């Protein structure tokens, strides 16, 4: 049998099998090369154009045949995500794959947007603007983050993309957060913040009446002096910045709710362990939360009201319209196990929210689009939509199943992680190798293709593929 395979391989010569210098694991399947039922508006060409592909590499990357969880547009079975350069070009079942495109065969797999951690440390070095100059795409934790499905993380006030082969474009945003220390345990800090916000509100009122008077033709009036106002408070009230609170207990959360009711502003609350006890009130304030479903808070039996942590926290918040992102208890990566409580296994933390009744759709949102919204980068990442950044992951099972591994992570249109090529998990349930029959079929098909191309006096053909098999 083997000799036949060898013979077939010899006969095939430079068949598509050998035509994959960029990705050492060539696909053995024919993928979506049939005439398209739907023509792309833009006629794709085989040669490298712009985009971030290396010279001679097609700017197109197609993830073909997977169950695509777009997040914002439902689930598409056996669909193709076609990326061009660093953006998603098309998503759908009938998308034609341009000749020469790099192809990931996701048949039988699930495709999700890249996951987003709204808090991280130790994955990307640098804070804020300095991420641009300090980003290390070859850092171990970047690779491990990708292995865990992350494609973007918040780090020290910046949002960084986990690029693997370049440093350009690593910094994609800087959430404008103003940390507001507002806890009942610190009456002074509360008083100060209230005073600042009141001052800012007064200023805005005076500003409005000044403008109205000026519009009415009054002349001997002077504008209010902005110097006397706390600028952070002003930006918060004008919704130019977002207030960042840390509040876990119902008491703290209630205080935050009261503040937000008095001074409506954009807010994100980290913690929220007892948020389920006042979900309706939180929902009315429009505040977003960053929660950890497994974070515990011992209930106080002395209290008559509901209190303590609940596995149903996320579900209750969801039902009351509170938007939230989920982070694990440790916002960094350790190699101390594959199902730990850190960013190596972010979906595992989310799985506990699902266990508490959160719908899977909402669970996925909490680590994709809703997380992106909290970070202010929802126009670029968080869902699989044409025009958005080509950041996605291909999983060999349901994202929230403990057995599931990320098989590929694509960041900015570049295959940043391939489980079979990385040294971490390749040996655990390796990607199935093609059977001898499949090899022969592929070789024969390759020969036929070559003959067809020769008959047509065609071009170079040969896709660079990353597919199943090794």
């Amino acid at each position: 049998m083997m000799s036949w395979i060898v013979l077939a391989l010899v006969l095939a010569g430079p068949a598509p099998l050998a035509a994959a210098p960029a990705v050492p694991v060539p696909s053995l399947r024919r993928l979506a090369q049939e005439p398209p039922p739907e023509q792309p508006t833009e006629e794709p060409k085989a040669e490298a154009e712009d985009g971030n592909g290396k010279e001679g590499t097609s700017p197109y990357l197609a993830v073909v045949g997977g169950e695509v969880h777009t997040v914002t547009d439902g689930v598409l079975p056996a669909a193709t995500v076609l990326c061009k350069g660093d953006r998603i070009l098309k998503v759908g079942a009938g998308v034609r794959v341009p000749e020469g495109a790099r192809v990931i065969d996701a048949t039988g797999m699930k495709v999700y947007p890249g996951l987003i951690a709204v808090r991280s440390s130790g994955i990307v070095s640098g804070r804020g603007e300095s991420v641009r100059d300090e980003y290390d795409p070859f850092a171990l934790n970047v690779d491990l983050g990708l292995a865990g499905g992350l494609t973007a993380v918040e780090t020290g006030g910046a949002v960084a993309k986990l690029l693997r082969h370049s440093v350009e474009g690593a910094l994609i945003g800087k959430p404008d957060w103003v940390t507001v220390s507002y806890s009942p345990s610190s009456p002074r800090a509360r008083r100060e913040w209230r005073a600042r916000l009141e001052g800012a509100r007064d200023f805005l009122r005076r500003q409005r009446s000044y403008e109205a008077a000026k519009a009415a033709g009054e002349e001997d009036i002077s504008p209010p002096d902005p110097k006397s106002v706390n600028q952070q408070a002003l930006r918060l009230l004008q919704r130019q910045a977002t207030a960042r609170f840390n509040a876990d207990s119902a008491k703290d959360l209630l205080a935050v709710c009261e503040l937000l009711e008095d001074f409506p502003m954009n807010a994100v609350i980290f913690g929220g362990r007892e948020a389920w006890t006042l979900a309706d009130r939180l929902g009315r304030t429009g505040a977003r939360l960053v929660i950890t479903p497994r974070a515990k808070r011992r209930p106080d039996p002395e209290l008559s009201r509901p209190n303590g942590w609940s596995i149903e926290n996320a579900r209750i918040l969801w039902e009351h319209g509170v938007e939230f992102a989920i982070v694990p208890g440790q916002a960094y990566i350790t190699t101390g196990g594959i199902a730990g409580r850190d960013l190596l296994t972010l979906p595992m933390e989310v799985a506990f929210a699902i266990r508490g009744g959160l719908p899977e759709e909402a669970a996925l949102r909490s680590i994709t689009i809703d997380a992106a919204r909290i970070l202010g980068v929802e126009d670029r990442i968080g869902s699989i939509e044409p025009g958005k950044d080509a950041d996605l992951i291909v999983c060999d099972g349901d994202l929230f199943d403990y057995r599931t591994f990320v098989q590929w992570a694509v960041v900015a249109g570049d295959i940043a992680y391939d489980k079979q090529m990385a040294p971490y998990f390749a040996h655990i349930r390796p990607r199935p190798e093609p059977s001898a029959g499949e090899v022969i079929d592929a070789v024969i098909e390759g020969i036929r293709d070559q003959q067809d191309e020769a008959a047509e006096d065609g071009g170079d053909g040969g896709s660079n593929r990353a597919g199943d098999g090794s």
Partner: protein
Amino acid sequence: MPAAAALLLLAAPLCPPQDEAPEPPAGRPLIFRVDRIETLAGEPIENGFLQVRDGVIEKIGDVLVVPEGAVVHDLRGDGSTILPPLVLARAGFLIHSTRGGGRNGRFRAIDSLWLEEGELHDLLAEGILIVAIDPPGDGIPGRTSVLATDVEGHRPEALVEDLHLRLRMEGGLRGAKDLMRKAIADAEKAIEKEKEARAAWEKARAEWEARQKAEAEQKKQQEQKQGQEQGSGGRSEPSARGRGSAQEPPPGQDGGRNGGKEEEQEPPKEFQPPKIDPNLVPVVEWLRRERVAWVSFDKPAAVLHWLDLLGDRDPAWSAILGGGSRFSRFAGNFMEVRDALAAAGVRVLLPAVLPNLPYTRIPTHPAAELDQAGVEIVLLPPRGDLEGVRSFRLALADLVREGLDRRIALEAVTLRPAAALGQEEIVRPLEVGAPANFIVFDGDVLDPTAEVQYVLHDGRVVFDRSLEEEEE
């Protein structure tokens, strides 16, 4: 005479090696017979000889006719080899002083040199004839210098005192990048300033010259006019008056003009460029492509940040992989930037090691991979100290055993580093007419138990192990 030569030819293999007289009197040939000559000019010569006379290679081949009066060293039998001398492209360990980071472009490595007794001789004993020294310090530490190892003294004369601009993209990426970015920006500003100054000077000069020309023209016309007047008027007196009138008013005019000119002042005949901070001068020269920069990187990300920093600029630079004095055991991920380095088309200097992928025991072969990607590699010892130099050939043998082409490996420690240091006239392929610079091993070059027996520089035996042993 031919009979005598034939007799000598027959007799030569029977003669014992005449080690007692390594250097023959002037004009007499010196012959080495070895098992293999790695000429690096073509195929190696097996069972060959190399004849030196008056500092050059007179003959090289496998059929020897021993000329009269020749001194013959016959080392055949144990796999002895002749090779062009080794070149050490980077040696920080010869510098014993320290300096901090920052922009220190004005320093030359040679100025920090104060050699311990016998330090260069130790290198010579390893077959290294040329060594480049690094200025101490981080950031932009200065310029490299090049030494021959057959010189003496604590502060010997250099072959080249001021060669490459040394840059270190090491440590914190942001700090290093900031330093380089500012240096490049300042250098570009200095270049721009000079360009503007030159344009202003050229303009002033052109205007001044035009004025001079116009004045000369005017003067000429006046003279012509006067000449005409003279021609039409009387002969004796008017001519004297005419001369007087022609001479007198112009001095007044000239005087006035000259006075004006004195106020204006003649622009200098030669352009005087504005002064540049001496720490910035080599950076300016580098950006003008008058100098090569040797940039070292301690991690692959630094290479990408460096390329990001360069942007569209295209000054000449070479990459040194591995920061500090040694390569990390886990620096295998340098291969992630293999294609970027190949695309940049730069020479890459790297230690002769097989580092693992980070946090794994998966070995990589950066030298072979870079070579396959079309990069010109120059190999450095596995460690940046004398011990590293001593294990250089063992490390080289490892690389060759694991797949690096032997010829490439040998060139990467001889001809290529020599060319990188501008010393290609000293370390050349072994051919007739080339200067007699080579080393003789008593075994194969890649056999770590083989030792350097002789080192020749311009036909002089500058190292002779038998003499060393005698001394001991």
